[in-house]
């Protein structure tokens, strides 16, 4: 390309250059008007951006959200269940099949997995490797809106994932009660509560020293294994049961079981299963907003 070879858009300006023609009062008024939409819808614009980025991963996202429930429900609900049901009898698992027992746990786990994925690298990348957050903030978007937008985009992945999972559960005959459909919401709440807690940490990370791998290995994996997912929490030795109590996955799974096949538990515990993830969401949300806002304001 040589200098000045093309004249660009000089004939039809690509922008409105009326700045000098505006009086100060008009300029101020224009600014006040310009702020209205970003203040109102900024979070949604951020979500829109994130969802646009996800589109390049659409194929694997779709394949995983259909493939994973098939694979997990078949492996655990059919394969492993054949051992357990042989040993304990077909309804030996507290009166229901192992498939029905394990399905709500797998549903919640799927939500947690998606949330963990979307709240680690994308959060850290936005400040570091692909620093789009600074670009958003130079536009009228606030730090709080960036966080809200991330949350909305994560939910936009979690909810369809859970809905597909639930459909596959129905195909496997793993849901006894119509109330089980509410499990989609319960699982989504579980997922986003984990996502927000992770975000409150990943938004702080200045340098990648493998923190993401540590979150997976010492956070997500133990949560998956020790939250009364594959067996009742009570079967764990008491010194390991605390992992379940603090794990949103256990609360979500237990609530899912109540809805799916009417597992019995005291009312206060059901309330706790809802209140605890909500509290985590609130804490994670506010903490992340604080961190992001502070980090942008250098």
């Amino acid at each position, binding site marked *: *390309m040589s*200098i*000045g070879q*093309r004249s*660009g*858009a*000089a004939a*039809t*300006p*690509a*922008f*409105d*250059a*009326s*700045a*000098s*023609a*505006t009086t*100060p*009062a008009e*300029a*101020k008024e*224009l*600014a*006040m008007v*310009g*702020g*209205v*939409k*970003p*203040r109102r*819808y*900024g979070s949604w*614009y951020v979500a*829109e*951006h994130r969802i*646009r*980025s996800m589109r*390049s991963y659409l194929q694997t996202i779709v394949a995983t959200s259909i493939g994973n429930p098939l694979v997990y429900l078949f492996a655990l609900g059919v394969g492993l269940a054949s051992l357990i049901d042989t040993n304990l009898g077909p309804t030996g698992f507290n009166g229901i099949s192992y498939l029905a027992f394990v399905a709500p746990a797998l549903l919640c786990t799927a939500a947690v997995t998606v949330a963990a994925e979307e709240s680690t690298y994308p959060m850290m990348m936005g400040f570091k*490797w*692909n*620093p*789009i957050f*600074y*670009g*958003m*903030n*130079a*536009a*009228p*978007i*606030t730090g709080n809106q960036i966080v809200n937008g991330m949350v909305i985009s994560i939910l936009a992945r979690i909810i369809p994932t859970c809905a597909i999972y639930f459909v596959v559960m129905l195909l496997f005959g793993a849901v006894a009660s119509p109330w089980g459909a509410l499990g989609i919401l319960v699982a989504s709440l579980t997922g986003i509560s984990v996502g927000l807690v992770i975000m409150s940490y990943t938004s702080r990370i200045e340098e990648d020293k493998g923190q993401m791998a540590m979150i997976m290995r010492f956070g997500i994996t133990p949560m998956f294994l020790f939250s009364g997912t594959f067996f009742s929490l009570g079967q764990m030795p008491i010194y390991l049961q605390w992992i379940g109590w603090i794990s949103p996955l256990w609360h979500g799974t237990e609530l899912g079981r109540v809805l799916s096949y009417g597992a019995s538990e005291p009312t206060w515990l059901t309330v706790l299963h809802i209140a605890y993830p909500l509290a985590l969401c609130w804490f994670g949300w506010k903490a992340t907003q604080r961190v992001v806002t502070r980090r*942008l*304001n*250098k």
Partner: protein
Amino acid sequence: MPTSVITANLLTKEYKGFAAVDGISFDVAPGESFGLLGPNGAGKSTTMRMVGAVSTRTSGELSILGLDPNEHGPEVRSQLGVVPQSDNLDMELRVRDNLIVYGRYFGIPRSEVGKKADALLEFAQLSDRAKSKVDDLSGGMKRRLTIARALINDPRILLLDEPTTGLDPQARHILWDRLFRLKEQGTTLLLTTHYMDEAEQLCDRLVVVDKGSIMAEGSPASLIKKYSTREVLEVRFGSERNAQVAEQIAGIGERIEVLPDRLLIYSDNGEAELARITAAGLEPMTSLVRRSSLEDVFLRLTGRSLIE
């Protein structure tokens, strides 16, 4: 007397007791092209972030389009176009999509933002790269895309932080050409640079900043007139002899600056001074007579070079 679009009064930003910006005052008129010239670490970028309404000031007053950025951040930013020092384009999106998502941040309807993006790609001479990955663009193209992105909201004021740093000479000239068009069309420009030629090309008026403070203010020509002579004679006698020769020729020219590798002799007639030196029996290894530049102004004001 036109009313200013940017007014800064004793603007200060401190980080843990260290004043990165230490009480600077300036104002920028509508349609004006205003520069902050200074070396790295002078506080230019911090000033830009405060004007860009993304960094809260420690003290002083700041008004952008009559609004306080502390209270009306989104409103102020809705009227700005920002080209940051290092590009922060979204590498995960393609070239055109970068403009579209950015336009949406200003609330531009989806039906309009596409047309706008295409017009700006044309302006930035990137139409044929609309579907490219950002990563595949050259440094100059990324810069032009960043500028196109900054124009998506028809900004009243365009903030450019070191717009051509790191670009090769050809890419710089293409960029200057684009910026000059914007200037001609009446966009207010606020830019920082540590390149004198850039400041001379683009700025109607500028302030020289060093260590967080303003050292001088004026148009490039008036600053040169006030703080330097019309011409500069550069002579080299070898790094060991420069200082010694400087003493011998004291009194030649209006002023002599001793740099490690050469002597600068300030005078309105460089050739005449060179003749006086040779007449004194001194034979420089090389000599050069040039016009004074902002570099000389900066040297005079701070005793240091702009680029070390």
